[in-house]
């Protein structure tokens, strides 16, 4: 996101001051936001938030969905688009209760994301454990890295 510093002669001196100020503000902001700032970079604003990791053979997608049950969750894949859909329902409270806190949200969600590489759609596995959804997506052969042996001559 950083402004490219422009050291050329055409850059008027007054903008220089602005640039310096902006850099300073960014430093302060980063210091305040700490680690969270790093994550915001990928923040899409669509529920659920997902993390994507990989190893040599597969991509792994994880999402935190506490309170969902597996049959309220729909995972589909079409081409390189993966879609997550579901509904989060409220815990049933007893009759005549007074709420002290109500922070947990309920509702529906639907999110599509484009996978960064080709996967074997028919071998995709989704598991839901302790409120965390993990989807394992085996990489297609053409997406895997090939080790090339360098031969000495």
């Amino acid at each position, binding site marked *: 996101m950083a402004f490219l510093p422009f050291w050329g002669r055409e850059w008027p001196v007054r903008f220089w001051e602005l640039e310096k100020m902006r850099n300073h503000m960014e430093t302060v902001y980063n210091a305040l936001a700490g680690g969270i700032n790093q*994550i915001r970079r990928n923040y899409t604003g669509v529920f*659920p938030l997902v993390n994507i990791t990989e*190893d040599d053979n597969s991509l*792994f997608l994880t999402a935190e969905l506490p309170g*969902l049950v597996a049959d309220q969750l729909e995972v589909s894949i079409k081409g390189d688009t993966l879609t997550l859909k579901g509904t989060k329902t409220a815990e049933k409270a*007893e009759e005549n209760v007074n709420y002290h806190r109500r922070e947990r*949200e309920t509702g*529906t969600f639907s999110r599509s994301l484009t996978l960064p590489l080709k996967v074997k759609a028919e071998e995709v596995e989704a598991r839901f454990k*302790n*409120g965390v959804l993990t989807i394992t997506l085996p990489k297609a052969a053409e997406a895997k890295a090939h080790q090339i042996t360098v031969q000495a001559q």
Partner: protein
Amino acid sequence: MTQPNTQELNPREKRPLDTGSAESTSTSPKFSPQVDIWENDKGLTVVADMPGVSAEGLSIDLNENVLTIHGQVEIPFPGRRIISQEFEVGDFYRQFKLSEEIDQEAINAVIRDGVLTVNLPKLAPAQPRKITVVSA
């Protein structure tokens, strides 16, 4: 269950644990879970979203009217390369000060699909005791 809610969910960033003036000595992030708390004349119920916490990783403690819930989360898959990260993974920790007298023996807790439910039944109110004053 309750009435269906068709409202669309919005993502919320996890709330980092507020340690007050005390600094944390550990570098791994800790979060404050989102909770619902309700009460009726029988007791208090605390429901907390703690994804990734299993029954083994959970500790609940009530000490001098302070309820502490702590859920340990295993950092998943060390060694995998991160392609994109939208949320952080870390333990959950939160404390509540309870005003009611709780029957400590009858507390029960269940964790299912990353949702912790703690039932804290109230102690039966002390019966008023009439004291007869006898004249000497």
